[in-house]
């Protein structure tokens, strides 16, 4: 395997670790909140934080790859990744703007 190939695989290994530990963290926080509720301590907010962490994990992976493509000066993929990020952000804005609508 050439040096270039090894270098190209670095973001993949970084992502692999990030997703593994991120999943553990989100699971841990969710589990803690559920355990608190089971023993009678108010844990709803902790569970909500765990769920939010799960939802945030993929955003983190988009950000990591955006950084990696920028470092490699791979500008076409920088544009592609930015479009994905913007679409996710647009979803968040839509979610916020609809949160007080009468339909919900």
């Amino acid at each position: 395997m050439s040096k270039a190939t090894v270098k190209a695989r670095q973001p993949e290994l970084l992502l692999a670790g990030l997703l593994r530990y991120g999943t553990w963290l989100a699971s841990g926080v969710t589990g803690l909140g559920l355990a608190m509720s089971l023993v009678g301590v108010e844990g709803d907010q902790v569970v909500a934080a765990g769920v939010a962490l799960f939802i945030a994990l993929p955003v983190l992976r988009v950000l990591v790859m955006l950084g990696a493509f920028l470092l490699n000066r791979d500008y076409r993929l920088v544009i592609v990744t930015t479009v994905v990020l913007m679409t996710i952000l647009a979803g968040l804005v839509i979610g916020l703007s609809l949160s007080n609508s009468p339909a919900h």
Partner: protein
Amino acid sequence: MGGSDMGPGFVLWLFAVSLGASALGGMLGMAGGIFIVPILTAFGHIDIRTAIGASLVSVIACSCGSASPFLKGGLVNIRLAFVLETTTTLGALTGVLLAGVIPTAYLFMLFALILALSARQMLTRRGETAGAATTADTWGWAGALRLDGSYPDRGQRVAYRVQRLPLGMLLMYGAGLISALLGIGSGVLKIPAMDTALRLPIKVSSGTSNFMIGVTATASAGAYFLRGDIDPAVAGPVALGSVVGSLLGARILMAVSNERARLLFAVVLVALALRMALSGYSVSLGGPSE
């Protein structure tokens, strides 16, 4: 659906059924999300929109939890994943906007249809369509974005080319839309997109699809979460059960006979399809979903 009145027994039930659904799905290398919504609505009497929100979080959890071996094994075409995610997330956004206006009865019916299609897909063998392609893709996008790749197979690197990218992206838009509407991974649309349009090797197709679904589901789950449509009291136990289940399912994968498991799954999918259609019918008559 208030979360505060749910007792410990209900939390454990949610955890257990999600674990089971996710382990079963993992055995066949698919997300368990497609089982979660029918089980929660039919047996847990949970509102279908709450079930969809919880299922989306579970889809993300499974995608993130199982991504590591795919990434380390070099089975994820990250560049292609991001190019396809431009349309899956756009589809998800469309789904978020549509979800608010689609009548509940239609959601049940659409779910029944997707379950039936998945059952059919389960029974047809996935043939290896990839090969040393000679035809260049007509629009030249795959080349410009350097999407072709290679993956390790029995000690060798096998090169493959990405074909018919525009068709693949169009199908992916549909996959994102269905994912956001029904809270599933949309394997039923992604598999034809990956196998038939893009002609990826099955290993790369599975790894890339697993990697993509997390980002796709986040585009809709983030919106639903901020809109207040995701009930953490349901989504929390479901996500946690799914992570544990997907870890178990990956281990059982080797142990069971593939053909029998496929037949069993097809039967379960058809049964769930009938159940969802029935619920949709009673909802459309104005009765309760039960």
